[in-house]
């Protein structure tokens, strides 16, 4: 059984955008972690994880986002998220992640926004 997460990488001003599609769980999170770690080790410290095409995320996936945030910040960078719908926002709120992870405009990651309606 092959489980795939698709991650496409693009640049936007000083930001590196990782657009993720699929389901982020224990099966796929190593792939996302590897992508994030790879970008940071290449010196791309300003990361946006776009979750617009993510159908599912659980606590394992949230752990990867926290790990990425910590790693980016420890090197003077940052990790933000975009494409957060109401469903994902609820999970962010319930876990307190909303307080530490900035949700930004996917076309302008310097701008923090509310949630997609």
């Amino acid at each position: 059984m092959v489980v795939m997460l698709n991650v496409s990488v693009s640049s936007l001003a000083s930001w590196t955008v990782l657009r993720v599609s699929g389901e982020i769980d224990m099966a796929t999170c190593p792939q996302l972690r590897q992508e994030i770690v790879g970008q940071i080790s290449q010196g791309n410290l300003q990361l946006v994880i776009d979750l617009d095409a993510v159908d599912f995320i659980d606590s394992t996936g949230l752990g990867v986002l926290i790990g990425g945030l910590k790693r980016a910040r420890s090197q003077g960078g940052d990790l933000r998220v975009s494409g957060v719908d109401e469903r994902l926002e609820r999970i962010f709120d319930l876990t307190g992640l909303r307080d530490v992870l900035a949700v930004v405009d996917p076309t302008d990651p310097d701008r923090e926004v509310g949630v997609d309606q």
Partner: protein
Amino acid sequence: MTQGIKLVIPAQPEYLSLVRSVVAAAAALDPGLGDARIEDLRIAVSEATTNAIEAHANLGSEERITIRCDLADDRIEVEVQDHATTGFDPADLEAPGPLDAPGRLDYEGGFGIPLMRVLADEMKIRSLDHGTAVQLVVYASPFNKD
């Protein structure tokens, strides 16, 4: 009347997606459960199954994990049972401190149990002789807490 299904899976992460799909499809048979509650259940079941897979991996167990899904008139009950020989004590799994607490970012786990507690209407963890059973209950309306 109660109707139900039973799913027995290898303790491997690749099967999580299948478990979520089957439980969500079963829950959708209950007209009293809205999409938001089915989503809650989908996440809670994924968390419980992830914990079961981890428990098996930690012990190198080749046993399978059983997911039972019972549809009653007023609720859906899902039980995830692992067969890892050492049951865990739920008291060991209290939520870590607030995310903005100093050092909290050092710890990437610990969201699973608190998430299950808030997403399901009821959650019970039982230690068995050979494993652990997590029971998750979501009520159909009018007890629907949405």
